[in-house]
């Protein structure tokens, strides 16, 4: 094989030229890393209004007059944490919702311990989720709430809406897998091969770090090399460093997934694709997507490598509702919530869609009465970085 003649002398002379720039950059970077950085995440104030076992229901303090009569409950996945929706001021889905006048609740699934290994999808959907929905309905004195699910939380929301359609006014699913019979995403290929029974027997709960390692392996060149090369190149940029560390904090904050729930999710969804075929049984009842008759907005990312469009787009065709809409954004799985471009698209779209369907929701005075009662008990949590780290 003939060796290509690489102009090493030219490369070296360019490197020498940039040596001075690199030295200044390194000096600035070291100064920057030693000074105090604002890397706190999930800083928007909220109250914990309901707690059960490890889960907590967060209610965000409104910043403007409520524009919608029906509150919105956001259900995040069991993988990683809901803090992703509130990563930083100015790039926070939570803050955008509040500024749009949405009364916002969000479930924090907490950190499962070994005793939670037997908790099933039924316990999460017909247990925790239903208790939370009942609580919000009681607080507001209303018969229905709006429900928004994210990723696996979206799948839970679909199941919930099919089993309890009378309690959900509008359903929004974002990057939600419902069809698992596709080879477009690596997760869909890999999950078909794993022996999940053995895995759960060995680990009890699925370790968050092992899951994270799996996610990193989906694109090691970018996620394990290029990402950090990019960090080194921008180490002298305070804003970049702060945002980078915020993202690192979120991405490696991975609670374990309860063993039985993980087993069911892999077996019934990834390996047997029962949900979209209306064959899934949860809590002894068949999940019939035809029972989802409320309006449905289904949002997903065109370049999502975890939940590809093929896994999301069938849902609107399978539900019983006639008021459905698909929205495919030019972004990936996380970009939908954190990219500046999508920040400008996602929340206005959801708010507008909900507003158009919120006109006849009853708003009773009972809500304020209940709130006043509850506020005596609840404690306000101003979440700080140190508290996040303690967990």
């Amino acid at each position, binding site marked *: 094989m003939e060796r290509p*003649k690489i102009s090493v002398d030219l490369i070296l002379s360019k490197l020498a030229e940039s040596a001075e720039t690199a030295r200044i950059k390194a000096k600035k970077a070291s100064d920057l890393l030693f000074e105090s950085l604002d890397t706190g995440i999930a800083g928007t104030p909220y109250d914990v209004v309901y707690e059960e076992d490890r889960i907590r229901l967060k209610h965000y303090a409104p910043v403007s007059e409520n524009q919608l009569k029906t509150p919105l409950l956001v259900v995040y996945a069991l993988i990683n944490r809901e803090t992703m929706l509130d990563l930083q001021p100015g790039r926070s889905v939570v803050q955008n919702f509040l500024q749009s006048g949405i009364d916002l609740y969000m479930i924090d699934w907490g950190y499962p311990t070994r*005793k939670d290994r*037997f908790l099933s999808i039924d316990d999460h959907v017909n247990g925790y989720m239903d208790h939370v929905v009942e609580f919000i309905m009681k607080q507001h004195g209303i018969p229905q709430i709006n429900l928004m699910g994210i990723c696996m939380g979206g799948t839970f929301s679909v199941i919930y809406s099919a089993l309890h359609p009378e309690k959900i006014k509008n359903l929004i699913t974002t990057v939600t897998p419902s069809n698992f019979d596709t080879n477009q995403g690596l997760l869909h290929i890999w999950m078909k091969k794993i022996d999940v029974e*053995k895995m759960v027997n060995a680990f009890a709960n699925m370790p968050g770090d092992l899951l994270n390692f799996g996610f990193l392996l989906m694109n090691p060149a970018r996620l394990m090399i290029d990402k950090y090369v990019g960090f080194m190149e921008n180490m002298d940029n305070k804003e970049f460093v702060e945002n980078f560390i915020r993202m690192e904090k979120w991405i490696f904050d991975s609670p374990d997934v309860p063993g039985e729930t993980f087993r069911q999710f892999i077996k019934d969804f990834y390996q047997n694709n029962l949900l979209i075929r209306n064959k899934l049984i949860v809590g002894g009842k068949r999940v019939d997507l035809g029972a989802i008759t409320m309006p449905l907005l289904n949002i997903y990312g065109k370049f999502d490598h975890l939940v590809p469009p093929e896994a999301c787009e069938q849902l609107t065709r399978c539900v019983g509702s006639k008021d459905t809409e698909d929205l495919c954004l030019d972004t990936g799985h996380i970009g939908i919530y954190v990219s500046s471009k999508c920040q400008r698209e996602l929340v206005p779209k959801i708010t507008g869609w909900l507003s158009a369907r919120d006109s006849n929701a009853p708003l009773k005075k009972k809500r304020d009465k209940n709130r006043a009662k509850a506020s005596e008990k609840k404690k306000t949590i101003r979440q700080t970085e140190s508290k996040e780290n303690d967990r």
Partner: protein
Amino acid sequence: MSRDKEDPMGSGIPGFDWMKIQKEYWEPMTKAWLEASSGFFKPQTSPQKNGQETNRLMRSLQVAFSTGFALFSGMSKSGFMDVFTKKQIGLPEIWMKMVMSGLEGLFDIQKQWIEKAGRIGSTVKAYEFESLDKNFIKVWETLYDKEFRKFFQIPQLGLGRFYQERINETLDAFSKFQSGMGEFLRLLLLPFEKTLQVIQEELQQKAAEGTLPDNADEYYRLWIKILEGHFMTLFKSPEYAETMAGALSSFEDFISARDRVLRDLLQTLPIPSHKDLDELSREIYLLKKRVSVLEKKVK
């Protein structure tokens, strides 16, 4: 003392002389030590038939030597040594067989290495991972399954057999986990190897076109782009999914086997094991469910 006079039956038996020397050395030594130390403590004694008190240690020593001499006497019976000698001749054959099978395996591994080394630098097709070479880890795995694994599967005897079996299972699972993980890591390194080879070809082409980059950053961008492509192709290959599942499976086997041994160890300590806690958690979980159903009925 003549050997024939002492015990003519034992002559010619391997080990007999050694036993005799031991007896002649240890019996007076023990006696002397006991006499010397009698001033410091009273030894445990028991009356003998003739009324003399004999030390317990001395008695044990005498019994041990008597048993030893009885054993050698039995061995001196006609025909025993013939059988013993024949068996001894067979032993090296068994050892040779074991050593040879191990060596053959090692030669195989070496052969694979040499073949692999010979292929370095040969042209590779970019973004292809089909029909990957069988590598030395696979050869080792086969060799392990065929030759070494059975040592961990030898049935154990006695009171501690279950404990020993669980330890053997853990060692076996660890060996399997190591080879499973080794194979998985080998696959993960392949894109790097292929990227280097492809980048060489790309550079040749660019050199021919006169478009070689003169900036280190551009070389990095080119490398990372090709590397990403190789990873993507590898990850979609059925072999990767199978190897990953295999590595995970062997890891889980090891974790489970290790936990069983740890459970045995924990039994000796006054702390609950994961199994105990899991059983308790399960009972609480089921009870909570029952309470919840009853609560709904009452409401």
